[in-house]
């Protein structure tokens, strides 16, 4: 059985009147890539800062590696790496010097440090930029440097706080691939993001957050199974009368019909032959359509059903 590495129980954090974390819970097992998914300002970064003892919290309990986490838990800290949302490096030091400095906060031995720094540079692909100052690097390369500084000491548990914000597609793929590699090498990852696709693609388990609360947790499939909609069919008709939409409600398993511009989004609950039933309806009523496609529910649908809002709002 895999060890529980992070245990967060009923944590409450207030910023004067604002409730940033509202009885927040989270558990992470060794080897997982846990995605903390939620809209901007939902409390993801606050949750991470509380877990890392960068912020005090008002109530609750946090344990890392089976021990209570405090600002003086240096043995626990030795096993943690943080890649913060902001690029947090020295502008006056070169790429190599930056990585070496942050490694030096964990590793005293010079030779080990040199090896670790070389490996980190290799890992993030900054070999050709070691003598560059951060201001000379592109946004994507800066993000890579930010990651290198957080993982150089080979931590067992890595917190990545929105590491792909404002990054070009090429660098984003590079970063996501790197995270997978870190996980394969044995690191447990806690990954916060508001990008649905990234979370779906990368994470073995996801916690959806909103207003400081953990709404649901599970694998992508488990989360999708929690909602009533199991299939969405998008149709764009050349012309359609309102009475026809009412008739569509009689198609088996239809739970909701939504009009979005020229598109009609027909939502079905669990059931077979939804697409063929719809096509039969169209043929029967001699309707003409421009496009028609079927979609499985996304995490956005999960969020929408849970909160009544879209995650992208």
């Amino acid at each position, binding site marked *: 059985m895999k060890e529980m590495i992070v245990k967060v129980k009923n944590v409450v954090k207030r910023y004067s009147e604002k409730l940033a974390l509202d009885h927040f819970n989270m558990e992470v097992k060794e080897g997982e890539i846990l995605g903390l998914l939620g809209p901007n300002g939902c409390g993801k970064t606050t949750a991470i800062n509380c877990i890392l003892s960068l912020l005090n919290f008002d109530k609750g309990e946090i344990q890392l590696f089976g021990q209570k986490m405090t600002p003086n838990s240096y043995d626990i800290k030795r096993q943690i790496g*943080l890649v913060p949302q902001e690029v947090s490096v020295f502008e*006056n030091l070169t790429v190599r010097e930056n990585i070496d400095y942050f490694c*030096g*906060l964990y590793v005293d031995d010079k030779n080990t440090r040199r090896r670790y720094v070389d490996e980190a540079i290799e890992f993030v692909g900054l070999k050709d930029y070691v003598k560059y100052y951060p201001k000379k690097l592109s946004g994507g390369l800066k993000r890579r440097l930010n990651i290198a500084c957080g993982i150089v000491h080979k931590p067992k548990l890595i917190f990545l706080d929105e590491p792909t914000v404002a990054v070009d597609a090429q660098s984003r793929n590079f970063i996501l691939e790197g995270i997978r590699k870190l996980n394969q090498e044995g690191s447990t990852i806690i990954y916060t993001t508001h990008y649905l696709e990234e979370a779906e693609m990368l994470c073995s388990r996801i916690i959806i957050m909103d207003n400081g609360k953990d709404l649901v947790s599970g694998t992508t499939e488990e989360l999708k199974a929690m909602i009533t909609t199991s299939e969405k069919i998008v149709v764009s008709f050349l012309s359609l009368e309102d009475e026809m939409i009412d008739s569509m409600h009689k198609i088996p398993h239809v739970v909701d019909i939504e009009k979005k511009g020229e598109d009609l989004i027909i939502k079905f609950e669990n059931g077979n032959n939804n697409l063929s039933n719809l096509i039969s309806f169209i043929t029967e009523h001699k309707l003409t359509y421009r496009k028609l496609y079927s979609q499985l529910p996304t995490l956005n649908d999960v969020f929408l059903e849970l909160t009544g809002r879209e995650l992208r709002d």
Partner: protein
Amino acid sequence: MTVYKYFIKVALKNKWIIIMYITIFFVMTLLNSTDAMKREESFVETRLNIGIIDKSMSELSSGLREYLEKENNIVDILEDEEYIKEQIFLEIADAVIIIPEDFDQKVVNKKEAILIYKDDRKPQALQIENQVNKFLAFANITYKDGRFELEDVKEALNESVEVQLLSSGDSYARTGVDSWFRFYYKFTGYVIIGVYIAIIGLVMSDFRDKNVDNRRKISSKRFLDFNKEMYLGQLTLAAAVTAVFIVASMLIMGKKLGEVYYIKYLVNLIVFSFSILCLTFLISNITRNKYAITALSTVLSLGTSFISGVMVPQELLGDKVLAIAKFFPMYYFVKINDSMIKSLLEVRYELFMQLLFAVVFLLIGLIFSKRAQKA
């Protein structure tokens, strides 16, 4: 010692600020060294060409004319303002004095008795004012029972005062060498404040940047160890800058160290340097804003230097200015530099005050540091 190593590295990335301050300092020192080493040892009165218009024709005015004729060359002059000004402009006369009719009365009543036109382009023209004032002052003293004792005035004016610049027997009496050291070490105060606050302040703001500091906070580096290395870095930098000034003074004036009480300058600089290091500690705990730090560096270095007597001697500064200056260690630093002492015990109060400031800065800095740590 990674933190220490990188503290020094980041500090050296700002080396241009250090070089700039130190270059300005040495250029000023170089310029001053030629002036300060020169010493005025004699003064010579020059004979001026003066015109006298005597409307009083009294015994007193005759006495004055006689005295001025003895000290200067008399030129003919007409009583016309335009003409007088022209003569002065053409350098025919250095000065013209007009003695009014009621001259005696004005002297007795101590009113402005004489009108003097002088060539303001020539510093020696001031001499005529001195001679007139001297005569009138003596005349006033002899005024008794409605008359002036002009014989006594003449006698007094004939007495010459011989001023000799003697060695006081005090081996550290003010000399040209001493003036050089005074100037040199006073200005180190200005540079030390500028460099410490600018360099150490900027480096500290890099290390205390919220995001960078969060990385340090979640690392396994103990807070105490981290701080120890940071303070060691600051101390190294301060010691290096102080050493540069000390060594440079030895290189420039090494042969003349024995002519001044050098230990005074040395101890004073070290104590002051420590005090400013503590001030920098306080500032870096109050603000991380680089613009604020740069501004403070300029304002504090120039401001305190000016009000404490680095630029202008303390004797020439007003009481209110000096009262404000007493709230800064620079005042005590300058006071020791300007003092003529044979033992450090004579300036123990000023040394104590600088150390007291250091302790106060340190304590307030620690309060802010604790508060930031808790936030």
